[in-house]
């Protein structure tokens, strides 16, 4: 923005000073206007006229942690088209930064030679890519039909209560996680556990905090596929 913007005229009240009469400029600076004099963008306008679209970051002024760079380049080499690695690359960056922060996206963009805008579009599409700051422990409670028929909504509330105020936790109600046989269930940092009883929640949260195995008896990986009691009479 040019000099003398509204921001510079903000007084102690936090409100712009000067004449606020309708139709007059605030301060002396130019206010960017979209076509037709509107201050909100239309369908075809960029969101922020004062900024140029972000270009592919220059490697010289975009430091990328060496391990992350190697990981992204390893993924890129696996595909006939390196762009296919965008989801694994964003996942790798998310592991380092906990969420897809602007820095994380910039680093992936720098290594993959894609624009940050492209990667932001990808990151916002997928549920497991976080586009706002979150805690590092992911607890996804499935709240889809099968789980909610067996009390998943109460479970989610209980987990939220138990972890309330702890910035280390990212507790979310999630779409069907593909484990309706152990409903109600949760995916704790990628480990599926269930059925989780409400009174097991304090234990579960304590185990996550301590970094130990979560509800070892109830992990899906230990569950038998065939139920010996399931016999057809015909």
């Amino acid at each position, binding site marked *: 923005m040019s000099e003398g913007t509204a921001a510079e005229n903000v007084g102690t009240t936090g409100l712009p000073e000067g004449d606020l009469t309708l139709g007059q400029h605030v301060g002396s600076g130019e206010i960017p206007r979209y076509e037709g004099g509107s201050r909100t963008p239309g369908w075809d306008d960029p969101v922020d006229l004062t900024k140029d679209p972000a270009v592919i970051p220059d490697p010289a002024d975009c430091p990328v942690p060496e391990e992350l760079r190697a990981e992204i380049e390893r993924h890129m080499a696996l595909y006939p088209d390196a762009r296919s690695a965008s989801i694994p690359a964003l996942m790798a960056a998310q592991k380092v930064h906990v969420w897809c922060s602007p820095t994380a996206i910039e680093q992936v963009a720098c290594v993959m030679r894609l624009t940050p805008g492209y990667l932001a579009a990808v990151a916002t599409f*997928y549920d497991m890519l976080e586009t706002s700051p979150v805690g590092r422990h992911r607890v996804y409670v499935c709240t889809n039909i099968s789980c909610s028929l067996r009390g998943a909504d109460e479970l989610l509330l209980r987990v939220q209560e138990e972890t309330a105020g702890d910035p280390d936790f990212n507790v979310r109600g999630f*779409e069907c996680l593909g484990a309706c046989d152990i409903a109600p269930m949760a995916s704790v940092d990628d480990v599926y556990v269930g059925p989780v009883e409400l009174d097991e929640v304090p234990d579960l949260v304590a185990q996550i905090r301590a970094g130990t195995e979560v509800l070892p008896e109830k992990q899906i990986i230990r569950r038998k596929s065939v139920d010996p009691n399931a016999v057809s009479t015909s």
Partner: protein
Amino acid sequence: MSQEAILFKGIDEPGLNTLEVYKRRGGYGDVFRKALSTPRDALVTELVESGLRGRGGAGFSMGKKASFMPKGAMDKYLVCNADESEPGTFKDRELMTKSPHMLIEGMIIGAYAAGATRSFIYIRGEYAQQADILDAAVAEAYADGLLGKHILGSDHSLEMLVHRGAGAYICGEETGLLDSLEGKRGNPRLKPPFPANQGLYQGPTLINNVETLATIPHILGMGAAEYAKIGVENSTGTKLISVSGHVKRPGNYEIELGMPVREILYDLCGGIEGDREVKFYFPGGSSSPVLTGDDLDLPYDFDSMAKAGSMLGSGAIIVVDDQTSVVDVCLKLAQFYKHESCGKCTPCREGTQWTVKMLERIIAGTATPMDLDIMASVQTQIIGNCLCVLGDAMAMPVGSMIEKFRPEFEAYIEEARARSERELIASLEEPGEVPLVGSLV
């Protein structure tokens, strides 16, 4: 069950996920070697004759799909759809956890039949444990010469890669999956061209579900004619079904197609929780129109389900008992599709949003019975008007619920309205304040 298990036979054997145990049980054996030396056309014919229908949801003949792949030298791809995100479905998870080599063996033969030299397993990001198991199994297969150049000295070469998604239901739709695999947002594509002509990286691509591909070695092992004897006409073979909701023993079961639903729910799954009654059930994942407690004697196969106005889909039965409100289930369902709609086509994007809004209105007590008609008409306007079937997948079950449980919806609307009126009057108990009649509606 007179038919013995095929895919689930000895599935719980410890170490089955390793190449050693899988081979000891006959995996990658004579059948595998013979398949790789059979002419491609003969292999495709065998798959057509087995009558194997896609196990992912659409139920299209697997052999026919493979036969659509063009001949000639070009980059062709095989993609295994392991995005299993249809609510209620969890059968592929079981197969990949316990017997990943069964899938890999099926993929190698399937790729050979389709002439593909590169293959991908697109697994949903939430299945991180299964993806790790698959990664290890693929590495083992490479080390043993089962993947890579000139498999076991044959002319067939195949590269395989496990690709993890990041959580999007739409990526289970085949063209959405392809876009996601190309590193884009998972928006579905306009069809035609179909993936068999122009799929991944513009090359011909065969896309199949995990269970479909895992069945291939078994079909070749017993012969197509033998396999076609299992099940009923037009629905051959066994099927893995995932039963969840209000049953005593939710889980995966392998059945011979054509088994009555009652037998599945009461014999295999031990009956309904608390010995209550079935109010309705989704026979093929949350996208299938619901069937009621009166439809329990239907045989569970593709054609019978279609004839009853629903579909077999992915083989996921979700059971809802008579204590549950149909409106609550309907809202859960609509919220899911609203969240997962990619937003590309207007009928789906707006239709899912408005269905949720109207259901919330019903629950809040501000709906009128006319809303039901509007809601039903929204569903019919979604069906068939979008690039993919995600919108239809909400419209069909929601439409069927309104159709079959209309009196309950209407009673719910009246009850909720009466409740909200009482609450409004109670909140206006200040002396002298008289509520306007109009404000009560």
